Protein backbone atom coordinates (compact mmCIF):
# COMPACT_ATOMS: atom_id res chain seq x y z
CA UNK A 1 0.00 0.00 0.00
CA UNK A 2 1.35 3.43 -0.95
CA UNK A 3 1.84 6.25 1.51
CA UNK A 4 -1.00 8.17 -0.12
CA UNK A 5 -3.37 5.26 0.27
CA UNK A 6 -2.39 4.83 3.89
CA UNK A 7 -2.97 8.49 4.55
CA UNK A 8 -6.33 8.39 2.80
CA UNK A 9 -7.46 5.44 4.84
CA UNK A 10 -6.32 6.99 8.10
CA UNK A 11 -8.07 10.21 7.24
CA UNK A 12 -11.28 8.47 6.22
CA UNK A 13 -11.28 6.50 9.46
CA UNK A 14 -10.79 9.63 11.55
CA UNK A 15 -13.47 11.45 9.58
CA UNK A 16 -16.00 8.70 10.23
CA UNK A 17 -15.07 8.39 13.88
CA UNK A 18 -14.97 12.06 14.79
CA UNK A 19 -17.38 13.75 12.40
CA UNK A 20 -20.23 14.10 14.88
CA UNK A 21 -18.00 15.08 17.80
CA UNK A 22 -16.54 17.87 15.71
CA UNK A 23 -20.06 18.82 14.67
CA UNK A 24 -21.10 19.11 18.30
CA UNK A 25 -18.02 21.21 19.01
CA UNK A 26 -18.99 23.64 16.27
CA UNK A 27 -22.70 23.63 17.14
CA UNK A 28 -21.94 24.44 20.77
CA UNK A 29 -20.06 27.52 19.69
CA UNK A 30 -22.71 28.88 17.36
CA UNK A 31 -24.93 30.54 19.90
CA UNK A 32 -28.60 31.07 19.34
CA UNK A 33 -30.28 29.51 16.37
CA UNK A 34 -28.05 26.73 15.14
CA UNK A 35 -28.30 26.39 11.41
CA UNK A 36 -27.52 22.81 10.50
CA UNK A 37 -26.11 23.95 7.21
CA UNK A 38 -23.78 26.42 8.85
CA UNK A 39 -22.40 23.85 11.27
CA UNK A 40 -21.89 21.41 8.45
CA UNK A 41 -20.01 24.02 6.49
CA UNK A 42 -17.57 24.73 9.28
CA UNK A 43 -17.07 21.02 9.88
CA UNK A 44 -16.26 20.61 6.21
CA UNK A 45 -13.62 23.30 6.59
CA UNK A 46 -12.18 21.59 9.63
CA UNK A 47 -11.68 18.32 7.83
CA UNK A 48 -10.41 20.05 4.71
CA UNK A 49 -7.74 21.73 6.79
CA UNK A 50 -6.95 18.45 8.51
CA UNK A 51 -6.57 16.78 5.14
CA UNK A 52 -4.23 19.49 3.91
CA UNK A 53 -2.09 19.09 7.01
CA UNK A 54 -1.93 15.30 6.85
CA UNK A 55 1.78 15.27 6.18
CA UNK A 56 2.63 17.21 9.33
CA UNK A 57 0.00 15.67 11.59
CA UNK A 58 -1.25 12.34 10.28
CA UNK A 59 -2.94 11.05 13.42
CA UNK A 60 -6.07 13.23 13.35
CA UNK A 61 -6.74 12.86 17.07
CA UNK A 62 -9.98 14.39 18.28
CA UNK A 63 -8.32 17.01 20.51
CA UNK A 64 -6.18 18.05 17.57
CA UNK A 65 -9.28 18.34 15.39
CA UNK A 66 -10.85 20.53 18.06
CA UNK A 67 -7.83 22.78 17.78
CA UNK A 68 -8.26 22.95 14.02
CA UNK A 69 -11.94 23.73 14.50
CA UNK A 70 -11.10 26.49 16.94
CA UNK A 71 -8.88 28.13 14.36
CA UNK A 72 -11.49 27.71 11.66
CA UNK A 73 -14.00 29.55 13.82
CA UNK A 74 -11.57 32.28 14.78
CA UNK A 75 -11.83 35.91 14.14
CA UNK A 76 -12.54 36.19 10.48
CA UNK A 77 -16.11 36.18 9.28
CA UNK A 78 -15.95 36.05 5.55
CA UNK A 79 -18.53 35.47 2.93
CA UNK A 80 -22.13 34.54 2.72
CA UNK A 81 -21.64 31.09 4.07
CA UNK A 82 -20.52 32.40 7.42
CA UNK A 83 -23.16 35.02 7.89
CA UNK A 84 -24.85 32.94 10.57
CA UNK A 85 -21.82 33.25 12.76
CA UNK A 86 -21.91 36.97 12.26
CA UNK A 87 -25.52 37.04 13.38
CA UNK A 88 -24.63 34.94 16.36
CA UNK A 89 -21.78 37.24 17.20
CA UNK A 90 -24.11 40.20 16.99
CA UNK A 91 -26.37 38.42 19.43
CA UNK A 92 -23.44 37.69 21.73
CA UNK A 93 -22.31 41.27 21.46
CA UNK A 94 -25.68 42.49 22.61
CA UNK A 95 -25.67 40.03 25.44
CA UNK A 96 -22.27 41.19 26.55
CA UNK A 97 -23.50 44.76 26.62
CA UNK A 98 -26.55 44.06 28.66
CA UNK A 99 -29.24 44.14 26.03
CA UNK A 100 -30.32 40.62 26.75
CA UNK A 101 -29.30 40.24 30.36
CA UNK A 102 -31.62 38.14 32.43
CA UNK A 103 -33.09 40.00 35.41
CA UNK A 104 -31.47 37.70 37.93
CA UNK A 105 -30.13 34.19 37.96
CA UNK A 106 -33.11 32.87 39.81
CA UNK A 107 -35.58 33.93 37.17
CA UNK A 108 -34.15 31.96 34.33
CA UNK A 109 -33.12 28.42 33.54
CA UNK A 110 -29.73 27.45 35.01
CA UNK A 111 -28.21 27.18 31.56
CA UNK A 112 -28.90 30.82 30.86
CA UNK A 113 -27.06 32.28 33.78
CA UNK A 114 -24.19 29.82 33.57
CA UNK A 115 -23.77 30.86 29.97
CA UNK A 116 -24.03 34.43 31.14
CA UNK A 117 -21.24 33.90 33.65
CA UNK A 118 -19.16 32.10 31.05
CA UNK A 119 -19.72 34.91 28.59
CA UNK A 120 -18.18 37.41 30.97
CA UNK A 121 -14.84 35.63 30.90
CA UNK A 122 -12.04 36.16 28.43
CA UNK A 123 -12.41 34.13 25.27
CA UNK A 124 -9.40 32.01 26.14
CA UNK A 125 -10.87 31.14 29.53
CA UNK A 126 -14.19 30.30 27.95
CA UNK A 127 -12.60 27.90 25.52
CA UNK A 128 -10.60 26.11 28.19
CA UNK A 129 -13.75 25.60 30.23
CA UNK A 130 -15.87 24.49 27.29
CA UNK A 131 -13.28 22.00 26.13
CA UNK A 132 -13.15 20.57 29.63
CA UNK A 133 -16.85 20.54 30.45
CA UNK A 134 -18.49 20.00 27.09
CA UNK A 135 -15.86 18.12 25.11
CA UNK A 136 -14.76 16.30 28.27
CA UNK A 137 -11.07 16.64 27.58
CA UNK A 138 -8.54 15.80 30.26
CA UNK A 139 -5.53 18.03 30.79
CA UNK A 140 -3.35 16.17 28.33
CA UNK A 141 -5.99 16.39 25.63
CA UNK A 142 -6.60 20.00 26.50
CA UNK A 143 -2.94 20.71 25.85
CA UNK A 144 -3.22 19.17 22.39
CA UNK A 145 -6.34 21.14 21.55
CA UNK A 146 -4.83 24.40 22.75
CA UNK A 147 -1.44 23.73 21.24
CA UNK A 148 0.40 24.22 24.52
CA UNK A 149 2.20 22.15 27.11
CA UNK A 150 0.44 20.01 29.69
CA UNK A 151 1.43 22.15 32.63
CA UNK A 152 0.37 25.31 30.83
CA UNK A 153 -2.98 23.73 30.05
CA UNK A 154 -3.44 22.72 33.67
CA UNK A 155 -2.65 26.24 34.80
CA UNK A 156 -5.02 27.79 32.30
CA UNK A 157 -7.79 25.49 33.41
CA UNK A 158 -7.16 26.23 37.05
CA UNK A 159 -7.33 29.97 36.45
CA UNK A 160 -10.38 29.74 34.23
CA UNK A 161 -12.25 27.70 36.84
CA UNK A 162 -11.45 30.24 39.49
CA UNK A 163 -12.63 33.10 37.31
CA UNK A 164 -15.84 31.28 36.48
CA UNK A 165 -16.51 30.71 40.17
CA UNK A 166 -15.96 34.39 40.80
CA UNK A 167 -18.39 35.36 38.08
CA UNK A 168 -21.02 32.99 39.39
CA UNK A 169 -20.54 34.37 42.89
CA UNK A 170 -21.01 37.89 41.60
CA UNK A 171 -24.29 36.83 40.08
CA UNK A 172 -25.47 35.79 43.49
CA UNK A 173 -25.36 32.06 42.90
CA UNK A 174 -23.56 29.36 44.77
CA UNK A 175 -21.39 26.95 42.90
CA UNK A 176 -21.95 24.11 45.32
CA UNK A 177 -25.65 23.52 44.82
CA UNK A 178 -27.05 20.15 43.90
CA UNK A 179 -28.33 19.44 40.42
CA UNK A 180 -32.02 19.41 39.53
Amino acid at each position, binding site marked *: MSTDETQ*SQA*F*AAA*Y*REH*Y*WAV*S*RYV*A*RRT*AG*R*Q*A*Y*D*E*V*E*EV*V*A*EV*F*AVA*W*RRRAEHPSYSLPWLYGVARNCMA*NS*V*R*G*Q*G*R*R*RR*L*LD*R*IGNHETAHGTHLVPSPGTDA*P*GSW*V*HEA*LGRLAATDQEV*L*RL*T*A*WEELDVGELAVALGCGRSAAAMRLHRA*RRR*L*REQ*IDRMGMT*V*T*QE*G*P
Partner: protein
Amino acid sequence: MTDEPELELLRRADPVPAGDPRWRDRPLDARAELGLRRLLAAEAASEGAAASAPRRTARRLGGLVTGLAAVAAAVVAVVAVLVLVLTGTGTTPAVAAPVALRPLAGSRGVPLADVAGAAREAAARGGGTGTRRGSHVMMWSMGMESGPGARPPVILPEEHLTRWNADGGGTELVVATDPRHPGKPVISDSGGAPRTVADGAVLHRAAYPPGTLPPYGRSGTEPPDSAKEMRGYLSQVYGCACADTPALLDALTSLLHDWTPGLSGTAAVDELLAAAPGLRPAGAVTDRLGRPGQAYVHDADGLRRMIVLDPADGRVLGIEETFTRDQPEYRVRAGDVMSYQAWMD
Protein backbone atom coordinates in the same frame (compact mmCIF):
# COMPACT_ATOMS: atom_id res chain seq x y z
CA MET B 1 -21.94 17.14 45.15
CA THR B 2 -18.76 17.36 43.17
CA ASP B 3 -15.29 18.72 43.71
CA GLU B 4 -15.67 20.63 40.47
CA PRO B 5 -18.97 22.41 41.07
CA GLU B 6 -18.46 25.13 38.51
CA LEU B 7 -17.54 22.57 35.86
CA GLU B 8 -20.53 20.47 36.81
CA LEU B 9 -22.80 23.47 36.37
CA LEU B 10 -21.24 24.09 33.01
CA ARG B 11 -21.68 20.46 31.99
CA ARG B 12 -25.36 20.68 32.80
CA ALA B 13 -25.57 23.78 30.63
CA ASP B 14 -24.16 22.02 27.58
CA PRO B 15 -26.20 23.48 24.71
CA VAL B 16 -25.55 20.45 22.52
CA PRO B 17 -25.41 17.31 24.65
CA ALA B 18 -24.04 14.15 23.13
CA GLY B 19 -27.55 12.81 22.66
CA ASP B 20 -28.79 15.76 20.64
CA PRO B 21 -30.54 14.10 17.68
CA ARG B 22 -28.89 16.40 15.18
CA TRP B 23 -25.35 15.75 16.27
CA ARG B 24 -25.36 12.45 18.13
CA ASP B 25 -22.75 9.84 17.28
CA ARG B 26 -23.88 7.59 14.45
CA PRO B 27 -22.73 6.46 11.04
CA LEU B 28 -22.21 9.30 8.60
CA ASP B 29 -25.32 10.59 6.90
CA ALA B 30 -25.43 11.08 3.15
CA ARG B 31 -24.14 14.63 3.24
CA ALA B 32 -21.26 13.84 5.55
CA GLU B 33 -20.38 10.81 3.48
CA LEU B 34 -20.46 12.99 0.41
CA GLY B 35 -18.13 15.47 2.04
CA LEU B 36 -15.58 12.75 2.64
CA ARG B 37 -15.88 11.37 -0.86
CA ARG B 38 -15.56 14.77 -2.40
CA LEU B 39 -12.51 15.64 -0.37
CA LEU B 40 -10.72 12.49 -1.41
CA ALA B 41 -12.06 12.51 -4.97
CA ALA B 42 -11.17 16.13 -5.60
CA GLU B 43 -7.66 15.49 -4.41
CA ALA B 44 -7.30 12.61 -6.79
CA ALA B 45 -8.97 14.42 -9.68
CA SER B 46 -7.01 17.59 -9.54
CA GLU B 47 -3.71 16.34 -8.17
CA GLY B 48 -4.06 18.48 -5.13
CA ALA B 49 -5.27 21.75 -6.56
CA ALA B 50 -8.94 21.53 -5.76
CA ALA B 51 -8.73 19.72 -2.47
CA SER B 52 -5.94 21.88 -1.22
CA ALA B 53 -8.32 24.80 -1.27
CA PRO B 54 -11.82 23.43 -0.86
CA ARG B 55 -14.07 26.40 -0.95
CA ARG B 56 -16.83 27.07 1.46
CA THR B 57 -19.27 27.07 -1.41
CA ALA B 58 -17.91 24.02 -3.14
CA ARG B 59 -19.96 21.64 -1.06
CA ARG B 60 -23.17 23.03 -2.47
CA LEU B 61 -23.78 20.32 -4.96
CA GLY B 62 -26.37 19.62 -7.55
CA GLY B 63 -27.21 17.37 -10.43
CA LEU B 64 -28.15 17.26 -14.05
CA VAL B 65 -29.66 14.68 -16.31
CA THR B 66 -27.66 15.55 -19.38
CA GLY B 67 -24.41 13.87 -20.21
CA LEU B 68 -20.98 14.94 -19.21
CA ALA B 69 -20.29 16.18 -22.72
CA ALA B 70 -23.12 18.64 -22.46
CA VAL B 71 -21.96 19.63 -19.01
CA ALA B 72 -18.48 20.22 -20.25
CA ALA B 73 -19.85 22.28 -23.13
CA ALA B 74 -21.87 24.40 -20.74
CA VAL B 75 -18.87 24.95 -18.53
CA VAL B 76 -16.75 25.95 -21.48
CA ALA B 77 -19.48 28.30 -22.67
CA VAL B 78 -19.65 30.05 -19.35
CA VAL B 79 -15.93 30.42 -19.18
CA ALA B 80 -15.87 31.72 -22.73
CA VAL B 81 -18.47 34.35 -22.00
CA LEU B 82 -16.65 35.44 -18.93
CA VAL B 83 -13.35 35.58 -20.70
CA LEU B 84 -14.88 37.61 -23.51
CA VAL B 85 -15.93 40.33 -21.17
CA LEU B 86 -12.31 40.74 -20.24
CA THR B 87 -11.71 42.49 -23.53
CA GLY B 88 -12.91 45.69 -21.97
CA THR B 89 -11.11 45.19 -18.70
CA GLY B 90 -10.83 48.35 -16.72
CA THR B 91 -8.51 49.08 -13.87
CA THR B 92 -10.94 49.89 -11.09
CA PRO B 93 -12.22 46.90 -9.16
CA ALA B 94 -15.94 46.49 -9.00
CA VAL B 95 -16.06 46.95 -5.28
CA ALA B 96 -19.07 49.16 -4.76
CA ALA B 97 -21.42 47.73 -2.21
CA PRO B 98 -24.60 46.60 -3.91
CA VAL B 99 -27.58 48.73 -3.14
CA ALA B 100 -30.49 46.97 -1.53
CA LEU B 101 -33.37 46.26 -3.85
CA ARG B 102 -36.20 48.74 -3.54
CA PRO B 103 -39.75 47.91 -4.54
CA LEU B 104 -40.92 50.01 -7.46
CA ALA B 105 -42.82 53.08 -6.32
CA GLY B 106 -46.54 52.58 -6.43
CA SER B 107 -46.32 48.87 -7.10
CA ARG B 108 -48.73 46.60 -5.31
CA GLY B 109 -47.61 43.50 -3.54
CA VAL B 110 -48.99 40.21 -4.77
CA PRO B 111 -50.05 37.87 -1.96
CA LEU B 112 -47.80 34.86 -1.65
CA ALA B 113 -50.81 32.59 -1.80
CA ASP B 114 -51.56 33.96 -5.26
CA VAL B 115 -48.03 33.26 -6.45
CA ALA B 116 -48.17 29.79 -4.95
CA GLY B 117 -51.46 29.22 -6.73
CA ALA B 118 -49.96 30.34 -10.02
CA ALA B 119 -47.01 28.04 -9.45
CA ARG B 120 -49.27 25.07 -8.75
CA GLU B 121 -51.29 25.83 -11.88
CA ALA B 122 -48.11 26.02 -13.92
CA ALA B 123 -47.08 22.66 -12.50
CA ALA B 124 -50.47 21.19 -13.41
CA ARG B 125 -50.06 22.36 -16.99
CA GLY B 126 -46.81 20.46 -17.13
CA GLY B 127 -43.72 21.16 -19.15
CA GLY B 128 -40.51 22.54 -17.84
CA THR B 129 -37.29 20.66 -17.38
CA GLY B 130 -38.07 18.82 -14.17
CA THR B 131 -35.95 18.80 -11.08
CA ARG B 132 -32.23 18.85 -11.68
CA ARG B 133 -29.39 18.32 -9.27
CA GLY B 134 -27.20 21.36 -9.46
CA SER B 135 -27.65 25.08 -9.76
CA HIS B 136 -26.43 28.20 -11.45
CA VAL B 137 -26.16 31.06 -9.00
CA MET B 138 -24.69 34.55 -9.01
CA MET B 139 -23.68 35.52 -5.50
CA TRP B 140 -22.65 38.79 -3.96
CA SER B 141 -21.51 38.41 -0.39
CA MET B 142 -19.92 40.76 2.06
CA GLY B 143 -16.65 39.65 3.57
CA MET B 144 -16.31 40.98 7.09
CA GLU B 145 -13.81 40.88 9.89
CA SER B 146 -13.79 42.05 13.48
CA GLY B 147 -11.20 42.73 16.09
CA PRO B 148 -7.86 44.51 16.03
CA GLY B 149 -6.51 44.98 12.54
CA ALA B 150 -9.79 44.00 10.94
CA ARG B 151 -9.99 44.89 7.30
CA PRO B 152 -13.03 46.79 6.04
CA PRO B 153 -15.84 44.77 4.51
CA VAL B 154 -15.50 43.90 0.86
CA ILE B 155 -17.95 42.62 -1.70
CA LEU B 156 -17.16 39.23 -3.15
CA PRO B 157 -19.05 38.52 -6.38
CA GLU B 158 -18.97 34.94 -7.63
CA GLU B 159 -20.80 32.90 -10.20
CA HIS B 160 -21.32 29.25 -9.34
CA LEU B 161 -22.22 26.58 -11.85
CA THR B 162 -22.71 23.07 -10.56
CA ARG B 163 -23.90 20.13 -12.60
CA TRP B 164 -24.35 16.50 -11.67
CA ASN B 165 -25.09 13.53 -13.85
CA ALA B 166 -27.27 10.51 -13.38
CA ASP B 167 -24.19 8.40 -12.64
CA GLY B 168 -23.22 10.53 -9.65
CA GLY B 169 -20.37 12.32 -11.39
CA GLY B 170 -20.33 16.01 -12.02
CA THR B 171 -18.54 19.30 -12.28
CA GLU B 172 -18.21 22.49 -10.32
CA LEU B 173 -17.07 25.84 -11.58
CA VAL B 174 -16.74 29.07 -9.63
CA VAL B 175 -15.61 32.28 -11.28
CA ALA B 176 -15.12 35.78 -9.96
CA THR B 177 -17.37 38.14 -11.85
CA ASP B 178 -19.90 40.89 -11.35
CA PRO B 179 -22.37 41.19 -14.22
CA ARG B 180 -23.20 44.70 -13.09
CA HIS B 181 -19.66 45.73 -13.96
CA PRO B 182 -18.62 43.65 -16.96
CA GLY B 183 -14.93 43.63 -17.60
CA LYS B 184 -14.00 45.22 -14.31
CA PRO B 185 -11.65 43.42 -11.93
CA VAL B 186 -13.37 42.05 -8.87
CA ILE B 187 -12.35 41.16 -5.35
CA SER B 188 -12.01 37.58 -4.26
CA ASP B 189 -10.98 36.03 -0.97
CA SER B 190 -10.31 32.71 -2.56
CA GLY B 191 -7.30 31.33 -0.79
CA GLY B 192 -7.50 33.65 2.19
CA ALA B 193 -6.98 37.39 2.14
CA PRO B 194 -9.04 39.47 -0.26
CA ARG B 195 -7.30 40.36 -3.50
CA THR B 196 -8.21 41.77 -6.87
CA VAL B 197 -8.62 39.31 -9.71
CA ALA B 198 -9.65 39.68 -13.32
CA ASP B 199 -13.28 39.43 -14.22
CA GLY B 200 -13.90 35.80 -15.07
CA ALA B 201 -11.00 34.41 -13.07
CA VAL B 202 -11.61 30.78 -12.26
CA LEU B 203 -11.63 30.37 -8.49
CA HIS B 204 -12.52 26.72 -8.35
CA ARG B 205 -12.97 24.00 -10.88
CA ALA B 206 -13.45 20.36 -10.13
CA ALA B 207 -14.67 17.27 -11.88
CA TYR B 208 -16.00 14.34 -9.91
CA PRO B 209 -16.05 10.78 -11.18
CA PRO B 210 -19.20 8.64 -11.41
CA GLY B 211 -20.30 7.42 -8.02
CA THR B 212 -19.22 10.50 -6.13
CA LEU B 213 -22.88 11.10 -5.36
CA PRO B 214 -25.57 8.46 -4.92
CA PRO B 215 -27.27 7.52 -8.20
CA TYR B 216 -29.43 10.33 -9.38
CA GLY B 217 -33.18 9.94 -9.35
CA ARG B 218 -33.26 7.32 -6.64
CA SER B 219 -36.41 7.48 -4.58
CA GLY B 220 -36.00 9.80 -1.64
CA THR B 221 -33.06 11.65 -3.10
CA GLU B 222 -34.84 14.46 -4.87
CA PRO B 223 -36.80 17.21 -3.14
CA PRO B 224 -40.50 16.35 -3.13
CA ASP B 225 -43.40 18.03 -4.88
CA SER B 226 -45.81 18.75 -2.02
CA ALA B 227 -45.47 21.40 0.65
CA LYS B 228 -45.94 18.92 3.47
CA GLU B 229 -43.27 16.59 2.17
CA MET B 230 -41.02 19.49 1.34
CA ARG B 231 -41.21 20.67 4.95
CA GLY B 232 -40.15 17.22 6.11
CA TYR B 233 -37.40 17.09 3.51
CA LEU B 234 -35.98 20.43 4.62
CA SER B 235 -36.07 19.28 8.21
CA GLN B 236 -34.41 15.96 7.48
CA VAL B 237 -31.78 17.09 5.02
CA TYR B 238 -31.05 20.62 6.22
CA GLY B 239 -32.07 20.45 9.87
CA CYS B 240 -34.67 23.13 9.29
CA ALA B 241 -37.02 24.22 12.05
CA CYS B 242 -39.29 25.47 9.33
CA ALA B 243 -41.86 27.15 11.57
CA ASP B 244 -39.17 29.80 11.97
CA THR B 245 -39.15 31.93 8.84
CA PRO B 246 -35.43 32.84 8.83
CA ALA B 247 -34.61 29.16 9.28
CA LEU B 248 -36.95 28.30 6.42
CA LEU B 249 -35.28 30.86 4.15
CA ASP B 250 -31.84 29.55 5.11
CA ALA B 251 -32.88 26.00 4.31
CA LEU B 252 -34.43 27.03 1.01
CA THR B 253 -31.22 28.81 0.09
CA SER B 254 -29.31 25.59 0.68
CA LEU B 255 -31.87 23.56 -1.22
CA LEU B 256 -31.62 25.87 -4.20
CA HIS B 257 -27.87 25.54 -4.25
CA ASP B 258 -28.16 21.78 -4.29
CA TRP B 259 -31.12 21.48 -6.63
CA THR B 260 -32.97 23.34 -9.34
CA PRO B 261 -36.57 22.34 -8.65
CA GLY B 262 -39.03 21.67 -11.42
CA LEU B 263 -42.44 23.28 -11.54
CA SER B 264 -44.00 21.05 -8.90
CA GLY B 265 -41.08 21.47 -6.53
CA THR B 266 -41.24 25.20 -7.04
CA ALA B 267 -44.94 25.17 -6.18
CA ALA B 268 -44.15 23.29 -2.99
CA VAL B 269 -41.54 25.88 -2.07
CA ASP B 270 -43.99 28.71 -2.70
CA GLU B 271 -46.68 27.05 -0.63
CA LEU B 272 -44.24 26.82 2.27
CA LEU B 273 -43.41 30.49 1.85
CA ALA B 274 -47.10 31.39 1.76
CA ALA B 275 -47.46 29.83 5.20
CA ALA B 276 -44.31 31.41 6.65
CA PRO B 277 -45.06 33.75 9.58
CA GLY B 278 -44.05 37.36 9.07
CA LEU B 279 -43.14 37.07 5.41
CA ARG B 280 -45.01 39.90 3.75
CA PRO B 281 -45.39 41.33 0.22
CA ALA B 282 -43.21 44.37 -0.48
CA GLY B 283 -44.09 45.06 -4.10
CA ALA B 284 -42.55 44.68 -7.52
CA VAL B 285 -38.78 44.82 -7.99
CA THR B 286 -36.27 44.48 -10.78
CA ASP B 287 -33.53 42.20 -9.62
CA ARG B 288 -29.81 42.63 -10.20
CA LEU B 289 -30.01 40.61 -13.36
CA GLY B 290 -32.72 42.88 -14.72
CA ARG B 291 -35.61 40.48 -14.20
CA PRO B 292 -39.01 41.61 -12.93
CA GLY B 293 -40.19 39.93 -9.76
CA GLN B 294 -42.28 40.23 -6.65
CA ALA B 295 -40.47 40.82 -3.36
CA TYR B 296 -41.39 39.46 0.06
CA VAL B 297 -39.59 40.56 3.20
CA HIS B 298 -39.06 39.38 6.76
CA ASP B 299 -37.30 41.32 9.52
CA ALA B 300 -35.52 39.60 12.41
CA ASP B 301 -32.14 39.44 14.11
CA GLY B 302 -31.05 42.85 12.81
CA LEU B 303 -31.49 41.60 9.29
CA ARG B 304 -34.06 42.04 6.55
CA ARG B 305 -34.43 39.01 4.35
CA MET B 306 -36.02 39.52 0.97
CA ILE B 307 -37.00 36.74 -1.37
CA VAL B 308 -37.84 37.61 -4.95
CA LEU B 309 -40.20 35.38 -6.92
CA ASP B 310 -41.21 35.27 -10.54
CA PRO B 311 -44.96 35.90 -10.22
CA ALA B 312 -45.68 33.92 -13.36
CA ASP B 313 -44.44 30.56 -12.18
CA GLY B 314 -43.28 31.14 -8.62
CA ARG B 315 -39.63 30.49 -9.37
CA VAL B 316 -37.20 31.90 -6.80
CA LEU B 317 -35.15 34.56 -8.54
CA GLY B 318 -33.12 35.76 -5.60
CA ILE B 319 -32.64 36.15 -1.87
CA GLU B 320 -31.17 39.29 -0.34
CA GLU B 321 -30.06 39.92 3.24
CA THR B 322 -29.70 43.51 4.40
CA PHE B 323 -28.59 44.84 7.78
CA THR B 324 -31.26 46.80 9.59
CA ARG B 325 -28.93 47.96 12.37
CA ASP B 326 -25.45 49.42 12.37
CA GLN B 327 -22.76 46.91 13.34
CA PRO B 328 -19.70 49.03 14.13
CA GLU B 329 -17.68 45.98 15.10
CA TYR B 330 -17.80 44.91 11.46
CA ARG B 331 -17.89 48.41 10.01
CA VAL B 332 -21.26 47.85 8.44
CA ARG B 333 -24.28 50.11 8.59
CA ALA B 334 -27.99 49.65 8.50
CA GLY B 335 -28.94 49.33 4.87
CA ASP B 336 -25.77 47.53 3.79
CA VAL B 337 -26.42 44.35 1.87
CA MET B 338 -24.80 41.34 3.47
CA SER B 339 -25.56 38.95 0.67
CA TYR B 340 -27.53 38.62 -2.49
CA GLN B 341 -27.98 35.47 -4.47
CA ALA B 342 -29.61 35.33 -7.86
CA TRP B 343 -30.53 31.99 -9.39
CA MET B 344 -29.82 32.12 -13.09
CA ASP B 345 -31.71 29.15 -14.46
